[in-house]
């Protein structure tokens, strides 16, 4: 129980820092931009993690949900609807896509879901390329009224909400079902779990979270040069990257992975230029092969060391007191 209070207090402290610091210090647009980008990545990663990390269904079409929400949010917002409503509508619109692709594919075992989501993302990208063969920009007055802090706090709020939601989902019947599906779908079915229903629910929530990311992006960036870039595979890859590096199937893994991604991306864009994507791909493969649990899994390797270092007598006692983190 003390473990949970510790985690809660650390989280609250972090949250307070994140709320207060930008109010007190001027971090500058550069850093603020990176932070908002970080929030977007965290949302995408947490979304992917829900269907991919917890439920074990590999989604190759995150970009479809993301892009769809960006478009819907943008047009609603530009039409005059308040941003928060626009984002919510944008996120809800992704659920339609999720239903279209999820219902036929989640029923079947094997690669159908992966193929289906990939096909959906590619199809949407192609459609966008043809239908919106131009840039999209928000009108001038939106540019004038732009306040980066709003984006920051909205992003922060979204991230906190999603993290809290995922935390409770993990501990709910849904969460249990999801993990059982990932570990052994057949066994889950035999124990009476309606695997199809839970896979679909998990996908819908995951799509909604991706939609939040998209909505935030629409609020963040007012100008899209190539509309099809919004539906680019890069978004999907970044989400998967963040989850794999940070640790799939954990609450904080996607957060860690996203932080890693943003920091590394920043360093690479200064030094390597185009080659940075190659390095990411290489890193991704290496992590998958040698550290499949990501950083969070790596933390398990450090824990016995840490506890032995902190409490000298009775190292066994502290190991026994640490329940499984998932």
């Amino acid at each position, binding site marked *: 129980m003390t473990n949970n209070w510790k985690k809660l207090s650390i989280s609250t402290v972090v949250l307070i820092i994140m709320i207060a610091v930008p109010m007190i210090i001027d971090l500058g647009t550069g850093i603020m931009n990176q932070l908002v980008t970080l929030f977007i990545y965290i949302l995408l990663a947490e979304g992917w993690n829900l269907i991919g990390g917890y439920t*074990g269904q*590999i989604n*190759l079409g995150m970009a479809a949900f993301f892009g769809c929400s960006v478009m819907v949010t943008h047009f609603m917002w530009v039409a005059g609807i308040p941003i928060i409503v626009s984002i919510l509508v944008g996120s809800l619109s992704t659920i339609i896509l999720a239903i*279209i*692709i999820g219902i*036929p*594919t989640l029923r*079947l*075992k*094997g*690669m*159908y879901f*992966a*193929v*289906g989501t*990939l*096909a*959906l993302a*590619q*199809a949407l990208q*192609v*459609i966008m*390329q*043809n239908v919106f063969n131009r840039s999209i920009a928000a009108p001038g007055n939106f540019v004038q009224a732009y306040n980066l802090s709003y984006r920051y706090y909205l992003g922060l709020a979204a991230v906190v909400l999603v993290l809290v939601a995922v935390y409770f989902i993990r501990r709910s019947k849904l969460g249990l079902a999801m993990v059982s599906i990932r570990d052994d*779908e057949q066994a889950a079915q035999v124990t009476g779990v309606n695997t199809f229903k839970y896979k679909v629910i998990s996908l819908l929530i995951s799509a909604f979270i991706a939609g939040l990311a998209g909505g935030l992006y629409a609020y963040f960036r007012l100008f899209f040069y190539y509309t099809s870039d919004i539906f680019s*595979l890069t978004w999907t*890859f970044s989400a*998967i990257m963040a989850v*794999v590096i940070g640790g799939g199937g954990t609450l904080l893994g996607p957060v860690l992975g996203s932080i890693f991604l943003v920091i590394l991306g920043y360093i690479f864009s200064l030094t390597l230029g*185009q*080659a940075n*994507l*190659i390095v*990411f*791909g*290489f890193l*991704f*493969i290496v992590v*998958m*092969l040698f550290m*499949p649990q990501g950083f969070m899994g790596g933390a398990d390797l450090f824990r016995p060391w840490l506890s032995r270092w902190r409490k000298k007598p009775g190292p066994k006692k502290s190991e026994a007191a640490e329940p499984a983190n998932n």
Partner: protein
Amino acid sequence: MENVLQVILVGILVGGLYGLVALGFALINGVMRFINIAQGSFIVLGGFICYWIVTLLHIDPYLAIPMVMAAMFIVGIILYRSLFSPLLKYPKAEMRLDKSLLLTFGVVWMLDNLEILFWTSNSRSIITSYGFGTVQVLGAALSYTGLIGLGLAVLAAAVLHIVLTRTYFGKHVRAATEDAGAASLSGVNVQRTYLISTGIAVALAGLAGTVIVTSYSVTPGGGISWLLTAMVVVTLAGPGNMNFMIPAGIILGVIQSASTLFVNPAYQQPIALIIFLLIIMFRPQGLFSKGVKGL
């Protein structure tokens, strides 16, 4: 009427290529239960290798095929050694599926961006002296390159079929596909069988790349598009039905081609998506399967 015939015949030519594109993917998926998301990127790589061989050595692209396939075979060996064989420790098919999917996704990332780095993101294609020639069939014009492509596809599928049914190696492959453990106990070196199969699958990607670079063009990053085609064809054909890849490809090709009569030709991918959804909703075992199981 002529228009319809043209569209159908073109669809058949393209469909043959689609079947070829699917062959390598289906081989890896069928034999080892891995998903090679990078298959499309390997096809593009094959096209680029062909392009550079032709540009530097000034030989006919079709003569370059053995070189391209040999090079790609080696790429396949590297792929197996580095990424696939570590996955063999997972006995469950789902784990292999998921892990191979993610790993090869990473390969796509590396490969596509390496290609952009070395060769810029421009498309390349090879124009031969006969490249623009066409044959008139019943009032429809069929390109030489398209016909050669179809011919190569059918040839590759036929050779693969013969190898799988008449050679020792082929029987080892089929045995390992049905029950890898039992094959091992019967004396089959399953790992080596898998290794060579992967090499063959990637070599087939190289062949497809050659056809594509002569008939159309290759672009870094265009691999995913070809991968999608492969996946849809495999779904159409049904699981493990290597014999029906070309027919399934042709069906996809004809439907896509016919769709251009009604819809902007740019929308080929959404059409493929619709076909995919229809198949899995109404006949998930594929068009040519007798059983009811899925992939």
